[in-house]
């Protein structure tokens, strides 16, 4: 479980997140909406532990451990993973090696990188430097491949649909659903109910378009407006509201909430 209480965060001396309370229970996936610059990526980066995001108040608990000030790699080892929107290129480090690094974190020394890569049609990119000259869609598939190898319990997705063409959106969406144990595959041995009860993976997905909702059944929607979580509701309802009247309504909610 992820539990965030009264979190306040500064970036370069400026407060960018205020009084954030958020709880994601095992098996739950939330989506995070919000206009550009509202602090969505900052929240993800803070949860992942990027040191430039300075926590000035509140705390982040994960699996009962206070990780508010833990270094990034400890959080990764504890089971938090992230799919980045614009990850850096690392020259000379092959995508294959990167996938192996991810698997190693999980204690899996021997993994079949090729087999894993085939699931996101990425087998032809394994011998290229990580992210070097990748298109938007290729970056997303590379990030998902890394997460598949890493197999975290809680996954942060920063705009997984952006820059992905219509053909690839299905691959991305279905892969995220699988990672979050949200796929609707029927199983001979287990009922749907049992599958749902056994679901443990948690997710927090930033989305602008909501396309991801076509592939992943999401439990809750959150709206971040000007550094404040202004709304927590049914994700479809939020999306419809935003697309019809925009984020103006969020301003009202934010004011009322405070």
């Amino acid at each position, binding site marked *: 479980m992820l539990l965030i209480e009264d979190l306040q965060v500064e970036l370069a001396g400026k407060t960018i997140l205020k009084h954030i309370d958020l709880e994601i229970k095992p098996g739950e996936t939330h989506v995070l909406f919000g206009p550009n610059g509202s602090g969505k990526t900052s929240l993800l980066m803070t949860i992942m532990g990027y040191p430039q995001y300075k926590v000035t108040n509140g705390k982040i608990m994960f699996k009962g451990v206070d990780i508010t000030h833990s270094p990034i*790699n400890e959080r990764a080892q504890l089971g938090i993973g992230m799919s980045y929107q614009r990850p850096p290129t690392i020259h000379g480090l092959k995508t294959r090696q*990167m996938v192996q690094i991810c698997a190693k*974190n999980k204690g899996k020394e021997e993994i079949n990188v090729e087999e894993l890569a085939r699931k996101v049609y990425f087998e032809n990119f394994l011998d290229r430097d990580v992210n070097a000259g990748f298109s938007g869609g290729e970056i997303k598939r590379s990030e998902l491949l890394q997460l598949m190898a890493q197999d975290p319990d809680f996954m942060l997705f920063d705009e997984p649909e952006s820059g992905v063409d219509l053909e690839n959106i299905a691959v991305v969406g279905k892969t995220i659903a699988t990672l979050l144990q949200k796929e609707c595959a029927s199983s001979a041995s287990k009922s749907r109910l049992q599958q749902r009860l056994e679901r443990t993976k948690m997710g927090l997905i930033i989305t602008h378009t909501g396309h991801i909702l076509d592939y992943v059944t999401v439990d809750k929607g959150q709206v971040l407006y000007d550094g404040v979580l202004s709304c927590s509701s049914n994700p479809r309802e939020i999306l419809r509201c935003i697309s019809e009247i925009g984020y103006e309504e969020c301003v009202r909610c934010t004011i009322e909430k405070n």
Partner: protein
Amino acid sequence: MYNREELAEKAKKAVDKRGAIGPDIDLNQYETAPVPHHYLADSDLCALPADEQQRLTMAGLDLTKKDRGGTYFQKDTSVIHCDSQQEGIQVIPIRKALEHHDWVRDYYWKLVSVDTDKYTAAAELELHDGYVIRALPGAKAVYPIQACLYLDKEGLQQNVHNLIIAEEDSELHIITGCSTSPHMKRGVHVGISEFFVKKNAKLSFTMIHNWAEDMQVRPRSVAQVEEGGLFLNNYICMKPVKSLQMYPTTHLVGNDAVARFYSIIVGSPGSEYDVGGRIFLKKPGNRAEIVARTISNGGTIIARGDLIGEVADIKAHLECRGLILNGGMIHAIPELRGYVDGVEMSHEAAVGKIAQEEITYLMSRGLSEDEATSTIVRGFLSVDIPGLPPQLKAEIDRAIQQSDETVM
């Protein structure tokens, strides 16, 4: 015309001539008297003390000779092992070659001038030995030839002259390791190398330096590549040295001749490296590439590169990237000279530090900060070198793995 007396006369006039660049070495401080060592049989090679074996292995020498097509091994001033197991590939100590093979005289001091500076002069006046490696016309070496120049005697100035000849349509791969014995600290290595890549021949030359903290090193090398020839020159130095200065030059003298230089240098504290490459593109269709990756870990590194385009329809690129990790200095000096319309030449140079976002990216995949840093450093040093046989690629990868020890 080969005239040893004339060469000696010329050399004598240059004995006090300083090198054009790099710190001056007072050669009077070092001994040059021959140091005799016994010739080693194959079985003796594998019976060398473990610490010596380790030094040799790190310099790329395979003592079992399993994956090598021939071996030249010189300790101090003496040749202690020399053979070739491949048809069409000759490996001969240069002194013996000068005595017994007239053809060698057509190559000796033909590209490097004996009066270049005091180091070339010393190599003529007090030549210890060196190797002649030659691939006969059409011969294709399956395995690389290995050469090792090893210093054991404290305070020695080792003078070596090498000739590497790839005859027409031949293919030759050489790995040469220079190293010092585990106890040795102070000495000088002077190495003259002349490379002849003839029509449509392919030569790869990979040099791994593994010196000691008080060693001064002055290689002097020039290559000539004829029509359709390819010269691949790789240089790796990950270990400390007091001072190393070299500026190998290649002349592309035939149409479509190609030269590629790759160097990987990690500069340790107290070490001074002045290393570069110069390629003259003289004929249409010439291609040249110089790639350097340098890391300063407290040392001083001057990374030079000079491309000279003399005719149209040539292409040349220079890439020089440096990382300063723990202090030190990197001075990148890329130079391009185009003399006519129609040359295509470019360079990119960068000196910087490891990007924090690359470290955090890897940390979010579970690596510690140190592991992330060394992963990035290894990546930085890994250059894809096309046309290198797998055994040599493996040697380079192995050397790069050792960067962890030096850098971290």
